[in-house]
């Protein structure tokens, strides 16, 4: 059934915001002449209650079935008017807004111009509204569970919040232990609490929470579906240690034939571990893992007569037959908390990180000063003959940040403070050392930051403004070549130890997750949020949220805050139990589709697939849209040569008349 379009046009004065530049009455008169327009009215505030009542009344009395509101941006009040007309019994998608404020009265000055333009915009809206179709908003059930990818502090916090709210959480961590980067830190600025002390309880909570299923040493393999209904497949990598039997006693590691041969990742390679190992003493879960690459038995097929670990393990937990396992489950929302990588200092060869052992990174410094680190907290360097305590220490900030030459224009936000923190920790341990910090700027914006920075300066730490150009060796000393930009003096500063304040970078392996969840990167290559200000934890994929450094560099307080935000957002569909599907989806005309699959290729949400249908006894392939996945972007339709796929409300047949109205009705 097709009804005659009866259009009502409502032109808003917006106080004088519109009417001072647009002759609204003239526009109304113009509108009345347009085909199918039954009423055209003006009103001081269309969005106000009486304004809406005006529209509703006309709908009831005059049988209007299409509404054009000429007022502010549809980005502002489209939902308002949609709601209003649907309350009056008109399908909410029979609305078109002409933006005569933001894009007309506010940007033009002359009444004549403003009026002429407003008329055109109204004309175009009327042309389109006549051809709109009624759409139905659909809802589907949402699975009351969440997936959190990455178990750094961000992931842990999100998982705990959601689990505390009573929803099931699957917390997937790639490495054998949860904790992420924060676990590696010694003390944390600006309060100097011990990182492990505040983190470990949370790690344990996460592992033992009845609502959290921790999947450590695991990776997400596949995610399909859409908000409310993601199907997830996770690979649990083989540890070769029976998770349930291992008691975490560590006998195996002590006896491993290749004991303490391999750089320990957790200690940034400063310490050594065996082929079977626990990343760090407080690791959660406290279960050993065999590093298959280095294990003699797994890599060479032979470890002495019998693998040593197997021999010594009283719990008989060693299982060389173990295979990767897969688990599959359904969730309603996903949080990405995959964190960051510290900048790889080798990429600034001028600093000699690869060449001189006494040039170290901030991350390594964290391990050095840590009481549980490889040196038990002692800062020692090797001067070629013996281990000594360094006397002259230089810290360099902004290594790999704010640096176009390595492609990182952004500020890493934590280096200023952690470098200051490390200066303080060095001062603590080496009261006599000369400590200087080379910097470009000091950014101490956070709560307690400036105070902390002041304190460090008072601790006889010299701040020298300059960006070192080179570090080289002269005798036993390292020479930092730099220009003091405050005095414009070139310096060659001879030191024993250089700490590079490396910045934060997107994880090298983030592509996997991007492809998995169809996420994008912002220009800094971290994950792109849906809106930098208003939707900082959302992504363009509905139901997928960001937490922590995965979205961009941040310190722990910000990470935790964002993690809580992400958890709250993720819980919306879980709590509602339902998700609303976008109604303005694409639809395929199967009679004309030629099955070329262009649209399938294009759709960023894999919402389209080719299916075989029977066309009068012939089997042909045609495209079909999964309405739950489609976001209505319409990219598919611009590529369809046969115009067979069209986004509802933005069909060619609706846009072309709009173009015509703008062109012809001068």
């Amino acid at each position, binding site marked *: 059934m097709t009804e005659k379009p009866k259009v009502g046009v409502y032109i808003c004065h917006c106080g004088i915001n519109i009417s001072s530049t647009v002759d609204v009455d003239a526009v109304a008169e113009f509108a009345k002449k347009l085909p199918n327009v039954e009423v055209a009215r003006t009103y001081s505030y269309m969005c106000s209650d009486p304004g809406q009542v005006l529209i509703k009344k006309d709908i009831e009395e005059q049988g209007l079935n299409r509404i054009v509101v000429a007022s502010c941006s549809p980005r502002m009040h489209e939902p308002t008017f949609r709601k209003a007309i649907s309350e009056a019994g008109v399908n909410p998608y029979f609305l078109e807004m002409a933006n005569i404020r933001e894009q007309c009265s506010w940007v033009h000055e002359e009444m004549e111009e403003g009026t002429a333009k407003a008329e055109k915009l109204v004309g175009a809206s009327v042309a389109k509204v006549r051809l709109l179709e009624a759409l139905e908003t659909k809802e589907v059930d949402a699975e009351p569970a969440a997936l959190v990818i990455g178990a750094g502090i961000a992931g842990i916090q999100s998982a705990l919040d959601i689990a505390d709210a009573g929803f099931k959480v699957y917390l997937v961590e790639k490495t054998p232990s949860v904790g992420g980067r924060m676990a590696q830190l010694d003390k944390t600025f600006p309060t100097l609490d011990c990182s492990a002390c505040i983190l470990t309880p949370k790690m344990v909570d996460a592992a033992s929470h009845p609502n959290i299923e921790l999947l450590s040493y695991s990776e997400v393999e596949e995610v399909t579906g859409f908000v409310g209904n993601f199907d997830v497949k996770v690979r649990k990598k083989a540890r070769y240690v029976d998770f349930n039997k291992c008691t975490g006693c560590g006998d195996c590691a002590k006896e491993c034939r290749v004991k303490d041969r391999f750089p320990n990742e957790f200690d940034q390679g400063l310490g050594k571990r065996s082929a079977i190992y626990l990343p760090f003493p407080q690791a959660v879960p406290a279960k050993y893992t065999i590093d298959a690459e280095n294990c003699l038995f797994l890599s060479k097929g032979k470890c002495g007569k019998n693998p040593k670990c197997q021999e010594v393990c009283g719990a008989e937990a060693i299982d060389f037959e173990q295979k990767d396992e897969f688990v599959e489950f359904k969730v309603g929302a996903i949080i990405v908390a995959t964190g960051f990588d510290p900048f790889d200092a080798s990429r600034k060869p001028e600093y000699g990180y690869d060449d001189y052992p006494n040039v170290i990174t901030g991350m390594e410094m964290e391990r050095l000063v840590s009481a549980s680190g490889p040196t038990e907290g002692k800062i020692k360097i090797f001067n070629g003959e013996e281990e000594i305590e360094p006397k002259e220490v230089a810290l360099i900030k902004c290594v790999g940040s704010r640096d176009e030459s390595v492609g990182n224009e952004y500020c890493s936000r934590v280096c200023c403070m952690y470098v200051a923190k490390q200066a303080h920790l060095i001062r603590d341990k080496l009261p006599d050392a000369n400590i200087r910090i080379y910097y470009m700027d000091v950014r101490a914006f956070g709560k307690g930051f400036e105070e902390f920075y002041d304190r460090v300066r008072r601790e006889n730490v010299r701040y020298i403004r300059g960006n070192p150009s080179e570090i080289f060796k002269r005798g036993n000393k390292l020479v930092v070549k730099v220009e003091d930009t405050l005095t414009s003096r070139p310096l060659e500063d001879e030191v024993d130890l250089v700490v590079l304040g490396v910045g934060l970078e997107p994880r090298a392996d983030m592509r996997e997750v991007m492809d998995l969840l169809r996420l994008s990167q912002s220009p800094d290559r971290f994950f792109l949020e849906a809106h930098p200000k208003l939707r900082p934890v959302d992504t363009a994929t509905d139901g997928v949220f960001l937490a922590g450094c995965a979205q961009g560099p941040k310190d722990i307080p910000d990470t935790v805050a964002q993690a809580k935000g992400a958890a709250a957002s993720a819980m919306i569909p879980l709590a509602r139990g339902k998700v609303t599907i976008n109604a303005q989806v694409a639809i395929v005309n199967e*009679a*004309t589709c*030629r*099955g*070329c*699959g*262009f*649209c399938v*290729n*294009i759709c960023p949400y894999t919402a389209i697939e*080719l299916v075989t249908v029977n*066309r*009068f*006894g*012939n*089997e*042909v*392939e045609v495209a079909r849209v999964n309405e739950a996945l489609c976001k209505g972007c319409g990219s598919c339709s611009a*590529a369809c*040569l*046969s*115009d067979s796929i069209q986004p509802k409300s933005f*069909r*060619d*047949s609706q846009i*072309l*008349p709009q173009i015509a109205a703008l062109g012809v009705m001068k």
Partner: protein
Amino acid sequence: MKMDLEQLRKTAAEVVSRDDVRYLVGWKQGTYGYRVAPGFIEDAAGAAELIFSPLCTANLATYLTLAEQLPVPRGEEPDDRKVALMVKGCDSRAVVQLLVEKGIERDDVVVIGCPCPGVIDADLLAEKYPETEDLAEMKWDGEDFLLIHGGEETKIARDELLAEKCRLCRYPNPIISDIMLDQEVETWELAEDEGVQEIEGKDVDERADYWAEQFEKCIRCYSCRNVCPLCYCQDCVLDRLNPTWVNRSVNFSENTAFNIARAFHLAGRCIECGECERVCPANIPLGKLNRKLAREVRDKYGFEAGVDPEAEPFQASFKPDDPEDFIL
């Protein structure tokens, strides 16, 4: 190159005799003069009609998608036997592009490859050696062409008659084939695309005038579209009235819109077989439009249509570093 006709016909006869082959499309002698016509061969005997000569300009790949799909009566099975197709190098690109676009499946077709030393431009030939009603034959003769007409043999230099598409052809050898009828020919030095360059050399108003004169002539017979192996939509948008991209009325405005839309729809898809231009009864140099776009696609986007069956369709893919110098 000397194409061995016996061999060709023998192969064709074998192919059409296969149970899984419905018919074979090749070239056969036309009804008069220099004409060569598409031949639909259904049995071994019919194969005797087939030829391959410098007159075989037509790209037969269009027949892969042209046949109408009739309703299959209930209880009957659709005939899904293969179509065998003779292809030159350029024609094979159409097959490849159709594979890319899923217009056909590899199993639907038996491709018989004919390496091609270049075909002639029939208009040039007719101009210089007027056609008569009796049949003429043509052959490749070393570097040259040999015209056999009324018992006389005339040697004609290659350059004199070589079709424009062939001067610019980079793929004289079929890119895919199930059976190759001959040894590959050597590729030749490419000519400059003078036709396109000449227009590029004009200023924008001159270009507008040039094309206005051309499009004015279009009678909207849609031969260019129908002959194109890659225009295979069941229901062409340029025919449709809702929405109306192009009005039915024939005038400069609509003709131009039609021609722009046609050319654009073939951006990154046209395989430069030149058929559209050949068949245009108004002699509109459509090839220039297609080649211009094909060249831009090649130079700017590093993409060539119909050379890689695994390629992503140009219009349905992008590279993050696609040129954007035109963006404000």
